[in-house]
């Protein structure tokens, strides 16, 4: 639980409700502080909303309203093709990441707690290695024998999934580990074993379903990161959504604004799902690194 941009213990909202006296006190004593609070809040909201409003306004500046949206959604085959590609890569990334992280986090908690610092260290490494450096490393390492992955389409697709799985490690591990912490894996495992279940069965029918909220949170976050990712996709020359958006931004006027709004909507959707799922559980909202 140390390091990484995960958001500290507990869910934010109930905690505020338990401290009514703290909330009331500044209001009674210091009127200027309330003014100050509103001022800070409004500046923050403006900072957040202005770029979005400006983008929306720009996307609607066309003579025929919504023509920019219609152009990208219905007339540009690249839009749906790249979005679909990124979505597919995202889903494969999530599956691979879950299949690696869940058994590892489970096993470390159950049998190998001494390895925990090492696992945590490795899951933090993607924060130390920016995507730009990771992709150059992959290009160099897999440019020749024995694994010339950069020489084929399939190989490049393998590399992009592998890179995204690595990027997802910090978020996925934290989400899964928090999920496992909330349930009693030891008793569940012993109960399953005493009824004759094997490890695969325990993981698939007991552990996975019991931490599904944590898994979904980690998955949506991974999806949000992967869908718009630019650096890795562009250097691996993949037909992904990020490079498409970058190209569009250079070539067209109103369409990039429309796609930016759509892409913001997708991010909001993914984060909204995490917040919705997290409401009834102890999993946390998490944030991605910079792009």
């Amino acid at each position, binding site marked *: 639980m140390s390091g990484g941009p995960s958001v500290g213990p507990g869910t934010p909202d109930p905690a505020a409700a338990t401290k009514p006296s*703290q909330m009331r006190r*500044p209001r009674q004593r*210091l009127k200027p502080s309330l003014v100050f609070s509103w001022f800070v809040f409004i500046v923050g909201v403006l900072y*957040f909303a202005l770029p979005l409003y400006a983008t929306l306004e720009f996307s609607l500046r066309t003579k025929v309203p919504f023509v920019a949206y219609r152009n990208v959604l219905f007339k540009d085959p690249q839009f749906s093709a790249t979005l679909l590609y990124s979505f597919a890569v995202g889903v494969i990334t999530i599956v691979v990441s879950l299949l690696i992280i869940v058994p*590892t986090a489970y096993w470390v908690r159950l049998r190998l707690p001494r390895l925990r610092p090492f696992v945590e260290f490795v899951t933090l490494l993607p924060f130390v290695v920016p995507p730009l450096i990771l992709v150059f490393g992959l290009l160099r390492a897999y440019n020749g024998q024995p694994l010339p992955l950069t020489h084929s389409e399939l190989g490049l697709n393998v590399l992009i999934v592998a890179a995204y799985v690595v990027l997802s490690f910090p978020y996925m591990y934290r989400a899964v580990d928090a999920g496992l912490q909330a349930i009693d894996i030891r008793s569940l495992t012993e109960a399953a074993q005493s009824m004759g279940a094997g490890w695969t069965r325990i993981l698939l029918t007991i552990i996975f379903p019991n931490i599904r909220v944590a898994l979904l949170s980690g998955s949506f976050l991974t999806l949000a990161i992967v869908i718009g990712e630019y650096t890795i996709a562009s250097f691996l020359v993949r037909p992904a959504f990020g490079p498409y958006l970058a190209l569009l931004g250079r070539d067209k006027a109103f369409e990039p604004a429309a796609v930016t709004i759509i892409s913001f909507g997708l991010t909001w959707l993914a984060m909204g799902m995490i917040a919705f799922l997290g409401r009834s559980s102890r999993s946390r909202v998490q944030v991605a690194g910079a*792009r």
Partner: protein
Amino acid sequence: MTDAATRQSAQGAPPARPGRRSNLTVLGVVPFFAFAALFLVLPIGFLFIGSFQDSSTHQPTLQNYFDLSEPNIVLAYKTSIEISLVTAVLGGVFGFLLAYAVILGGLPRFLRSFLMTFSGVASNFAGIPLALAFTFTLGLQGLVTKLLLNGIGLDLYSKHVGFTIYSKVGLEIVYLYFQFPLMVLIVAPAIDGLKREWREASENLGASSRQYWQHIALPILMPTLLGTTILLFGNSFGAQATAYQLTGGLVPLVTNAITAQISGDVFHNVNLGYALAMGMVVIMAISITGYSLLQRRSERWLRS
């Protein structure tokens, strides 16, 4: 940490269970470490070795690291570090004030969940779309640029003001968009962790609100605040896509320098690029380590 985990680490070893293959338990984590080795450690290892090789003869050399002192490379590091420092400190201060305003500042409670959700979205809304959104806001044809021009006659892009979003200052404004929400997300639970009893105790002893913050709350929050500021530094230092889309390499950044050396067309030196990359990894490692250490320290007080 769960009770089970702490109990185990206190004993120093996992409890002996009647499990099968007890000496093969390590095999359970092999897929994870193998994957990390293949797609994270090995690639970085290749870059590390490459950074000590001469680009034409492939002989071992330290020249690439000596070349890091070239003026344009020093400038790239300086600019990247400056942008990261400015956005980390401004984002950190503003993010803290915002979290404070919403949690303890007496604002209606529903604004708080609104702020948390928007912070989650904004801190993830980086890269190409963010760069585009700011060109529509503060670019030459941007909404705010036009509003200022038509409203109060202020021309941001005139020679007199000399502003452009495609510059270092422009980049800082854009980076702050994901920096301060990240601060809000990390610092909000820490502000929540301040116990009511501490405040009551200090008030009973006659402390003013200012004294409470100066001598109790801020010192307790300090590791979180410092640690998160360091994290913000790394967050902006490692960013590439936003800056590339916005400035197209006009602002000298380390990421641009690496790209130019490794995949540039004219004069490039791949191995110098690898040395640049290693320098970047070292700076990122220092910042993440600092964050981890300070976060661990802050958990001592704020564990609820």
